[in-house]
């Protein structure tokens, strides 16, 4: 007899249907995954099971929960782990007390102190964290506390809504292993919601694929992954394994960018009379990027890769070291980045929603970089913008629209178009696909590869996703704690990693 059975569930807000006739069932101890992109209705399906849907909805269909009548559903029978561990915890309460609060609700009359310690041990944290506040813990530790709270009521079903998407790769792998172990130990069923096929494959025996509120495919994880029936599932699987593209007609040229001994440290805030303390963000970084070369930059979060890419782009300055770029030399002693160097370099940002001013139309945003080329006349500017748009597969009519009228994938194309307007020699790509849904990632990567082939643009590709880096980059730099710990040809580095961090990053990968 199944624990929860959902039959033909439909949810709509006003006239807008978000979930169409979804059916799923969860048996005791079974781990079920729901995969879909943003807006596919996967979170709503989960919330309807735990009866947490927003009030303004209209729901049709049956949800049978195998729970004794009169007992509280949430916590005791169904536990939930949320996506953002910082906002899911009360910032003013010690985490031990938050676990205790859940215990008091569901299991009155037990030894709370001992049970809290047990739960903390269960999620593999040291006993001392019970007396800490959420802001004193790392994202991964907070997510473990979230899991401990969910476990407090000893539920038969655990719902995890994107529990790892706010975490870095290494922590993600640890949390997934932990959830798997805990579910097995308690014979607890799991409903795991994710956009990441790899995470679902690592954790679940059964998977439902959702596309725009419709259930397109269901089956055991291995059968769905091995022989997907629907085109959409096939696309998802293909996108999770990006195909490799190398230069065919073009060859890598002479060095374009050379960094020598770049260091940067940040002062930590503190009272003025105290001894100054610093964080060494980058220490003595030297690297080379050649013309038409794609260099990957990987590392765990906080390793300094964002600072490094911002220094290369000229958004921050280094405290030590020199930069040679396209015949210009600049740096701490040599002065600021010259304007002539700026026009040979541009950047594509991670968040396709934050990279455009919501109040300006696309024409205003796309013409903006031409501020660096005052010598161009109106017709030349127009030609450049239109050509950049054409290269990313969009049309000039779209220039009149504002950012909100575009999808995430279109915006990322527009961001690439904006980077191309200057016809730069180097583009810094800061996690250009990680905020995009898996199915459009492939298109954007393909576009970037075409642009490199056709125009000989060099890329610095910053990413936490090793599979993507392996597919696009010629060479890879691995960073850890502000230093480059390993570099070389992607295949050499990934097949025979030397540095410990490279090994750990590779182990944390969740393949499909």
């Amino acid at each position: 007899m199944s624990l929860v059975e959902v039959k033909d569930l439909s949810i709509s807000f006003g006239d807008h249907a978000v979930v169409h006739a979804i059916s799923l069932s969860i048996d005791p101890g079974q781990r079920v995954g729901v995969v879909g992109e943003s807006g596919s209705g996967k979170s709503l399906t989960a919330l309807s099971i735990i009866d947490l849907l927003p009030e303004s909805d209209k729901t049709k269909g049956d949800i049978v929960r195998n729970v004794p009548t009169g007992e509280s559903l949430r916590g005791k029978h169904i536990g939930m782990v949320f996506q953002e561990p910082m906002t899911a915890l009360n910032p003013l309460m010690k985490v031990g007390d938050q676990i205790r609060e859940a215990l008091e609700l569901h299991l009155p009359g037990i030894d709370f102190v001992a049970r809290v310690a047990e739960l903390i041990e269960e999620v593999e944290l040291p006993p001392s964290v019970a007396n800490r506040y959420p802001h004193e813990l790392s994202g991964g530790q907070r997510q473990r506390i979230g899991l401990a709270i969910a476990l407090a009521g000893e539920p038969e079903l655990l719902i995890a809504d994107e529990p790892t998407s706010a975490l870095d790769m290494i922590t993600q792998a640890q949390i997934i292993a932990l959830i798997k172990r805990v579910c097995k130990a308690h014979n607890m069923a799991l409903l795991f919601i994710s956009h990441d096929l790899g995470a679902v494959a690592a954790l679940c025996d059964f998977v439902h694929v959702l596309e725009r509120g419709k259930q397109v495919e269901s089956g055991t994880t291995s059968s769905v992954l091995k022989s997907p029936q629907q085109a959409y599932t096939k696309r998802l699987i293909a996108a999770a394994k990006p195909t490799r593209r190398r230069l065919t007609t073009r060859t890598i040229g002479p060095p374009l960018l050379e960094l020598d001994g770049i260091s940067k440290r940040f002062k930590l805030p503190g009272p003025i009379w105290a001894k100054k303390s610093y964080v060494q963000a980058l220490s003595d970084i030297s690297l080379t990027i050649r013309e038409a070369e794609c260099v990957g930059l990987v590392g765990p979060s906080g390793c300094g890769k964002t600072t490094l890419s911002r220094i290369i782009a000229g958004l921050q300055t280094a405290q030590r070291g020199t930069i040679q770029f396209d015949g210009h030399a600049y740096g701490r002693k040599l002065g600021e980045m010259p304007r002539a160097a700026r026009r040979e370099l541009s950047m594509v940002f991670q968040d396709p929603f934050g990279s455009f001013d919501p109040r300006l139309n696309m024409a205003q945003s796309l013409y903006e970089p031409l501020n660096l080329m005052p010598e161009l006349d109106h017709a030349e500017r127009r030609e450049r913008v239109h050509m950049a748009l054409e290269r990313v597969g969009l049309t000039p009519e779209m220039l009149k629209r504002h950012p909100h009228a575009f999808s995430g994938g279109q915006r990322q194309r527009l961001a690439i178009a904006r980077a191309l307007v200057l016809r730069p020699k180097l583009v810094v790509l800061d996690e250009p696909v990680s905020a995009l849904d898996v199915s459009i990632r492939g298109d954007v990567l393909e576009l970037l590869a075409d642009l490199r082939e056709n125009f000989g643009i060099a890329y610095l590709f910053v990413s936490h996703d090793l599979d993507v880096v392996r597919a696009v980059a010629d060479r890879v730099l691995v960073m850890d704690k502000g230093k480059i710990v390993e570099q070389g040809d992607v295949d050499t580095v990934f097949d025979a990693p030397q540095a410990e961090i490279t090994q750990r990053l590779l182990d944390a990968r969740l393949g499909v």
Partner: protein
Amino acid sequence: MAEQSTFARALSHPSFRVGLLGSFIFILLALISVVWTPYATDIVDIPNRFGSFSASNWLGTDYLGRDQFSLLMVGIASSLKVALLAVAIGALVGVPLGLMAAAQRGWLEAIILRFNDFIFAFPAIISAIIITTLFGPSAINAMVAIGIFNIPVFARVARGGALSLWTLEYVDAAKLSGLTSAQISLRHILPNVASLLIVQATIQLSLGVLAEAGLSYIGLGTQPPDTSLGLMLKEAQSFFFGFPMQAIIPGLAIVLFVISFNLLGDGLRDTLDPKLTRVSTL
């Protein structure tokens, strides 16, 4: 979801509707008084003083026999003028200061913030008294005194809004395009903090009306023969026990005036700042 204009969304907000209607009536009365009032306000008619409500003088007459309704219209106009110009002074000086502080950070920001604290350290009414006693009581000086108080308010709002915008990626993109801090402030920051500033302006406007009334009441604002709501209150207080309506009418006008602008501001804030209203749907 169908795109709705901000104004249409605001109109569905009940307090905004009430506030808009009230403010509209007050502004209309003020505008009409510039070209026409039922009676001239500078003609003394002693035999008819302290007249009660009648068909010819809707709200009666004051201690000099002047028509109360005409005085009220002119009073609203002068109160509004003082408050508007005070807001203009505050916004024109405060907003650039706030934007500069957010753009430059470092020592410039520290100076601007300390300057703000300095102004905030004095109770508003005390400094207004200092200014008006130094430069003589007049509507203009009251305006400047209230305006100085608006400077740090606008500077804070502008800086607070701007600081969060400076960390956004489109601002980075603008930096990469070689735009200077001043250009970025004008092109990207100001339009995006405009809604915050508009809300603040309506609130400061209602506070300005109140401050003007207070200053005029203690004789430091508008001077006779001109009139303002505060001055009407002051003149009526000697006769309060004999003729309470003399004070109640301008007093009520001040209350309604302030409430209207506050409701307008609240409604605008709820509409323009989605963080406060849009209860998360998921």
